[in-house]
């Protein structure tokens, strides 16, 4: 099944450069409905305001981290099934385990490449 290119995607990162890189790579994959947030709390507000089909989030942000965002999403009845990919420099086993236990769908370690991003999105969206 092909990926739905009209999917609404929310990318979350406190580094504007990373938002730009991920957005450009997603555009290369022909995703054009992309919104951005610079921390977990801003992302959560956007998620409650609009229907998204995928969240791609960094972990290390203030005031709300990516893990806290993930937990808030999974605790929200209206958002708990939302596909969630973590993209982060946090590569320790304890981080991966914590994210998985919190309900992450996939985990990409920085620095990453376009192929990995595509593969994880495809895997998470079940295409």
């Amino acid at each position, binding site marked *: 099944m092909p990926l739905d290119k009209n999917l609404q995607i929310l990318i979350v990162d406190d*580094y504007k450069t990373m938002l730009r*890189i991920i957005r450009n790579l997603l555009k290369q994959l022909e995703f054009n409905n992309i919104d951005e947030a610079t921390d977990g709390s801003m992302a959560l507000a956007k998620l409650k305001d609009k229907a998204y089909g995928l969240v791609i989030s960094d972990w290390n942000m203030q005031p709300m*981290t990516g893990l806290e965002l993930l937990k808030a999403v999974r605790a929200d009845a209206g958002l708990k099934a939302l596909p969630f990919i973590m993209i982060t420099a946090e590569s320790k*086993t304890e*981080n*991966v*385990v914590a994210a998985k236990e919190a309900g992450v769908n996939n985990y990409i370690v920085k620095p990453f490449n376009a192929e990995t991003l595509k593969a994880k999105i495809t895997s998470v969206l079940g295409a």
Partner: protein
Amino acid sequence: MGAAPLPAASLDQRLASLRQTYGEAIPLDDLVDVVRGLLESLHGDVTLQDLRVYGELEALARYIRRAKEEIRSIRPDDISEEHIPTANVELDAIVTHLEEATGTILDSTEIVEAIATGVGGEVGERLQAAVTAIYEACNFQDISGQRITKVISTLQTIERRIGLLVEALGGTGEALPRKPGEKAATSTDDHLLNGPQLPDNANSQAEIDALLASFD
């Protein structure tokens, strides 16, 4: 006939007198004089054990005095007021320059990408592949920024510890307050915010994929 042995009560009296003068804590600056005075006040049959204890006390006082002199010689005020702030400013400047340079690279790359789309064909595809490689390489800005943030945090910890050490040794240094920009622990997952790992310690994407798969 030698000096009369020091009765046990005399030592107790001497200690009581010291307590009366200094209370329970003797300032480090006075410690050497107190130990010397105590030893000089003792006459007669002091036991070997007593001598060993007094000797160790005196050695401890000498050690503390040497440590204070060494700390004074490295000028801890310079470290907290000049060296570390300067290093922080330089590191902040590196982060800013990295961000600006990466922004410029991305500006140009987006122009090339637009041209590649217009060119099409094999040349367009090759240009597009090069553009993708540049986007991937620009990951470095985020990773470098996080590494530099870790270094700044480490410097701030050293600065604070030096202040505490100087204070503990009776120096004039005051405990250094938290810097305005210094991040306080506010997240529920602070213990997991490790930042980028050095290549030898980091899990690869393949290792992380295997770890995730082990949950299934």
